[in-house]
């Protein structure tokens, strides 16, 4: 009797027309862009990029920067800040829902915890995609006449997406195991600062094999180095591919760990111990 009742009920509701991750991603994107902080973050991003583009353009006018360097500078800034925004959004993904009390309702649906994190990852990556789209006109303005705009855009899309996937997955992992949203945001920002710090040294990293290895291990410095090598030094895309090993591995390992560990990490209470 129980079984027949259950089956009748399930027949009334089982009309799946989209996988769970897509439904989660769709709602997360709506929350982020229609009524959330996405537009505000991108407005801040465009103001910053406008400033950088203006400085690069005026320096270009007085010949302090070559046009290729100006495009490289703007692209590096776009990748760095775009990835930062992606990380900030993903770091709030699980811990934020936990604190707002909305995670339990999500866990009570038949959507698997893996599908939940994939949906959230896709929504976080939408920040990077929109940031990249916003970057296009700036690169076009700076790169007019030297025919590197298309190359810069392709490079930015490829390399930026690799870094964004890796760091967004790391941000969600941190968010899942953090005991509070503040901890998650603090740890994620510290991680980002640690990864970006070498790029901010006035004369770059010191020379030598040790620092070369460090630069290659760090997915951010490796990715930005690759962009510069192609855009400024005019290297072929295939020449410095070894610099992309770290961003690719980070994306695969962090993304894989996020999805594989989701059944254990996406839960009502944060922390690394068992529930």
């Amino acid at each position, binding site marked *: 009797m129980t079984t027949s009742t259950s089956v009748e009920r399930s027949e009334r509701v089982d009309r799946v027309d989209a996988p769970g991750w897509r439904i989660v991603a769709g709602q997360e994107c709506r929350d982020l862009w229609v009524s959330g902080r996405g537009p505000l973050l991108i407005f801040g991003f465009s103001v910053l990029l406008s400033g950088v583009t203006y400085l690069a353009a005026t320096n270009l006018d007085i010949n302090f920067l070559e046009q290729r360097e100006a495009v490289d500078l703007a692209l590096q800034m776009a990748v760095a800040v775009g990835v930062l925004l992606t990380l900030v959004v993903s770091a709030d993904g699980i811990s934020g829902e936990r604190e707002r009390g909305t995670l339990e*309702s999500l866990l*009570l649906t038949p959507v698997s915890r893996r599908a939940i994190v994939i949906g959230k990852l896709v929504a976080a990556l939408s920040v990077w995609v929109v940031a990249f789209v916003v970057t296009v006109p700036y690169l076009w303005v700076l790169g007019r006449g030297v025919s590197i705009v298309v190359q810069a855009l392709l490079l930015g899309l490829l390399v930026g997406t690799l870094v964004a996937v890796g760091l967004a997955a790391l941000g969600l992992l941190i968010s899942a195991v953090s005991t509070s949203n503040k901890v998650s945001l603090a740890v994620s920002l510290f991680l980002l600062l640690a990864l970006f710090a070498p790029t901010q040294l006035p004369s770059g990293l010191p020379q030598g094999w040790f620092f070369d290895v460090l630069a290659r291990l760090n997915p951010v410095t490796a990715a930005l180095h690759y962009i510069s090598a192609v855009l400024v030094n005019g290297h072929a895309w295939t020449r410095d591919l070894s610099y992309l090993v770290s961003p690719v591995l980070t994306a695969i390992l962090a993304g894989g760990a996020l999805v594989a560990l989701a059944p254990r990490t996406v839960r009502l209470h944060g922390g690394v111990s068992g529930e």
Partner: protein
Amino acid sequence: MSMASVTVEAQQLTKRFGTRTAVDELSFTARQGDVVGLLGPNGAGKTTTIRLLTTVLAPTSGEFSVAGIPSARPNEIRRRVGVLPESAGYPGHQTGRDYLRYHARLFGLARSDAERVAERLLTQVGLGERASSRISTYSRGMRQRLGIARALVNDPTVVFLDEPTLGLDPAGQRQVLALVRETAQSRDATVILSTHTLPEVEEVCGTVLILEKGRSLVSGTVSDVTRAVAVQTSGQLRVPIDQVDRARRALASVTGVALEVADGRPDVLTISLTEQPGGRGDHRGDTGMNAALRAVLSADVPVLSFEVEGVRLSDAFLTMTGEGVG
């Protein structure tokens, strides 16, 4: 004995958090159409029990089935249950309609079906006119009703409601309790209602399960639990003020009771049992109170009210959990 099918069955269910045992070898069953009151003091394990049965937490040991589905298939169980979690949060920027539509979609409904179900449920819980308002503008009672609607989007076999009336004003409580009753009756669903408010359990629940420190103290119908546990000690008899002396004379002939006039109320007589019942299940007190009432009625004294203390579910609860001692 109800012949309805068993929808919830827990066997030796245990949940430990480190060295602390939140639920300790809990076993019980609930049937289709039952409204089961899950009672217990703070920290008794009510919320953990609900989280185990709804697969949000994994048990340390023991087994359970919900809607005939064993605990080894949690995704299928979640398709059959609806839950209003304790202190559930709501996304304030979404409208009530968006919120329900999203959850209906998560349960596998097609877009058009989700829309239809959301509209129907919002109307059912009395939020039809506020469907397009943001949840941040809802009162607490409205949010609780929205939460109940959310728990029903998948037409569940078993509905778990964790403290649904917490923080609501009396009108809000009545609305939510009416919804609970309607859910059990019209949908023939099993409702597991966790609450601290015992009068509402007496009002809507057919059976109760009392927990303490994660263990089951007693379970059964409300009347069985009350009869088995409660101990009558006194009663309050109200008669017309000019009949008080006549009532006193009638009661004087009843052995085993003592009389006094209630403080500040000359028309109310407090009847106390001078022979205390022997313990749980001893109903000598019942006889004493009945004899007192019979004596008053035989003397043709009009009885305006007669209230026996110690026979309510709250008395049984306090006796069982020791919270009434002292």
